[in-house]
């Protein structure tokens, strides 16, 4: 296959974005391991974390192959600095309380399901295959987190307040889901990727439905954060990467 260098680089960047979202959120979820509110939920959060890290592994491996510089998934995960990470700012925010983790998971997974569902039609067979696997897993993430949003929102006064606060705090990070730049436009025109701005109406409808059933209020503010896709991150990503990368960087070449 002879692709133009620019298109190839856009596809590499695009796969990094997909992979980094899942790697960073998977790591944040893994911080709950041993700290879940109850044994069953501890297992559920760790399962979701493993699903996301598994998806990240496949996506970063493919992005390394597309780049063609011999970088493996591990090299991309452990030997890039924050400025080279391409994840959404939402996924790097600290895990917060259980309500924050759950509301974030619901907002992100609802988006990820639409995104991966569309990517099953990618003209790149390997990405289409990864997306098909991710759809199955993400459907469950939406079901689990959505059910929890309703339980918390329509629960006690405290669980309602915490869920509402989480929704208010997270809302300004949702705009970044749907931004598109040259990278997305290029992969969309090549048929390998998609322009995420097309997903916003369906996402909003799903979120509104669950928020209403949870007796929560959708925030009215329209200010949106941006920057993660071009390497501008919150202060939290550096701390996360320090912890995630320390073993691989202290013992280069180690296998475990």
């Amino acid at each position: 296959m002879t692709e133009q260098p620019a298109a190839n680089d856009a596809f590499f960047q695009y796969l990094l974005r997909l992979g980094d979202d899942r790697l960073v959120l998977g790591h944040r979820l893994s911080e709950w391991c041993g700290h879940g509110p109850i044994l069953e939920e501890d297992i559920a959060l760790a399962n979701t974390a493993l699903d996301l890290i598994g998806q990240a592994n496949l996506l970063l491996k493919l992005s390394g192959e597309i780049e063609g510089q011999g970088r493996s998934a591990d090299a991309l995960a452990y030997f890039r600095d924050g400025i080279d990470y391409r994840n959404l700012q939402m996924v790097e925010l600290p895990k917060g309380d259980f309500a924050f983790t759950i509301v974030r998971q619901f907002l992100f997974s609802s988006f990820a399901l639409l995104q991966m569902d569309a990517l099953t039609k990618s003209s790149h067979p390997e990405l289409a295959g990864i997306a098909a696997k991710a759809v199955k897993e993400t459907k469950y993430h939406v079901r689990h987190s959505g059910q929890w949003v309703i339980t918390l929102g329509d629960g006690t006064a405290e669980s309602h307040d915490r869920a509402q606060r989480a929704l208010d705090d997270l809302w300004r990070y949702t705009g970044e889901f749907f931004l598109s730049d040259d990278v997305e436009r290029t992969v969309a025109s090549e048929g390998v990727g998609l322009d995420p701005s097309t997903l916003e109406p369906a996402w909003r409808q799903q979120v509104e439905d669950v928020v209403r059933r949870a007796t929560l209020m959708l925030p009215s503010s329209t200010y949106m954060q941006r920057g993660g896709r071009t390497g501008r991150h919150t202060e939290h990503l550096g701390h996360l990467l320090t912890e995630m990368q320390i073993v691989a960087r202290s013992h280069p070449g180690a296998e475990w």
Partner: protein
Amino acid sequence: MSQPTTPAVDHPVDSQWPLWEVFVQPPNGEPHEHVGSVHAVNAEHALQNARDVYTRRGEGVNIWVVPTASITASTPEDMGPFFDPGNDKPYRHPQFYKVPQGVRV
């Protein structure tokens, strides 16, 4: 001894959530089998917890969850009257009967 008004902080408190018994049907279509129990706030939550705890490695194709409180169980005291009488009634077992001549086994 007077009742303490607040629980000691270093004693983890068990979940207030109700207990559910989990039954999983194996992929080969055999009947549902009891595999364990989970805590959950409602039936959907119990299904999800059961899925996460018991069926992550392809163990099943269907799950039943039943509130533990809904199960009526025999007690250890029932051991005698419930289960013993069979032992002195050998005619309840197929081995009691001789296979008639001419029947191929």
